[in-house]
């Protein structure tokens, strides 16, 4: 039996993915704490196409197996994403863990996810036979569940480079090595204090990241001092339905999300 695969090109990796049952191994930090693996590993870190960052016009294209530490060193990565990455674990894990791994692991507490939702990230899924692009919100379908097919690999994360401001918050038990109790990403662009664009995402307060374009649509076009903040909080309050678990309580999570949102809308814009 084959023990593991070590492709050097994406083409090779996709061919293996087509022909064999394998577990894609990017950083390994989530995989290695699970005890059993049903299939041999497909090691991805030698594949250059998957570990580089490129720009194309106003689009940023991040190879899915790019480690967090590389994203911190790259000036092209938006500050809001770097801030989220800085809050992940500690240096040793940031040297291994990858952005694509964070997405495919699909934990509700994945720290890059709210930011990627707010950035309108599009994911490139490739198999030997076809290439498909899908919005991150359509790719992640539930707790640890994605639309990745057994023949596919997540190869690229793509989003537009935009000007504007942001707020990112991670609430955890301590600064390093904490899994989020909740997280928040708000990204906006204002013109003469009128909100042109805004995207708001909450992490770890539901099976998947909470983002709602309808509410965002109502905020857009308004002067930042003329927002009906209580009403906006009410609307998000109906969408944020966290759970009690070992890290926090539903009540705490919801209240802190709304507190952060209030602060963001009153002082962060």
């Amino acid at each position, binding site marked *: 039996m*084959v*023990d*593991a*695969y*070590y492709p050097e090109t994406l083409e090779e990796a996709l061919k293996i993915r087509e022909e064999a049952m394998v577990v894609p*191994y990017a950083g*390994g*930090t989530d*995989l*290695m*704490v699970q005890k059993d*693996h049903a299939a*041999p*590993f497909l*090691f991805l*870190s030698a594949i250059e196409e998957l570990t580089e960052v490129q720009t194309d016009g106003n689009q940023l294209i991040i190879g899915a197996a790019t480690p967090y*530490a590389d994203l911190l060193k790259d000036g092209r990565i938006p500050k809001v994403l770097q801030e989220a990455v800085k809050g992940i*674990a*500690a*240096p*040793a*894990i940031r*040297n*291994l863990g990858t952005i694509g791994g964070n997405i495919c692991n699909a934990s509700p507490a994945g720290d890059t996810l709210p930011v990627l939702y707010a950035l309108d990230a599009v994911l490139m899924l490739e198999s030997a036979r076809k290439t498909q692009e899908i919005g991150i919100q359509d790719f992640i379908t539930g707790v640890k569940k994605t639309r990745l097919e057994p023949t596919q690999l997540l190869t690229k994360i793509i989003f537009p480079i935009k000007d504007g401001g942001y707020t990112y918050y991670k609430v955890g038990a301590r*600064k*390093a*090595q904490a899994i989020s109790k909740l997280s928040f990403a708000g990204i906006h662009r204002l013109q003469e204090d009128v909100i042109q664009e805004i995207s708001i995402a909450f992490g770890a307060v539901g099976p998947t990241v909470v983002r709602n374009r309808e509410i965002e649509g109502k905020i857009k076009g308004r002067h930042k001092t003329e927002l009906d903040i209580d009403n906006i909080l009410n609307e998000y309050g109906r969408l944020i339905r966290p759970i009690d678990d070992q890290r926090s309580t539903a009540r705490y999570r919801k209240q802190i999300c709304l507190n952060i949102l209030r602060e963001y809308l009153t002082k962060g814009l």
Partner: protein
Amino acid sequence: MSKQTEFRLNGNQVHTSRPAGDRLLDVLREEFGLTGVKCGCGEGECGACSVLLNGKLVNSCMVAVGKVRLQSVVTIEGYSKTERFRIVQKAYDTAGAVQCGFCTPGMIMATEALLSVNPDPTEEQIRDGLSGNLCRCTGYNMIVHAVSLAAKEGRGLW
């Protein structure tokens, strides 16, 4: 696709026939007898199993041995033969940064990883550099002091 994984370990070319999915930590301890690499938590929380992979700090409990194929791994045993180690060792000694000693190999590898990219770190940078390594004895201040002492005493070495 051979079942042998070849890699560089503390400067020597080695190979293992353990399954590629086995933890690097277990291969280092059980096959190569490198027991300076400790298993504390087994899930990347404590840093006691820290080693350098191509010069970068990693938790060896979270690395499948297949991942280090054709790469270079340095453990505390290999690092202890260097001039840099002697400076770090003396600094840990002077600062009283070692009590039970279980976290020490990991702390020292984190120290080397930090100084190798930032030879003159601020206190905050030191605390960030060691943030993945737990110590239940010292309360950390002595270790932070040791790292700044090593940076000072070893100026020019990193």
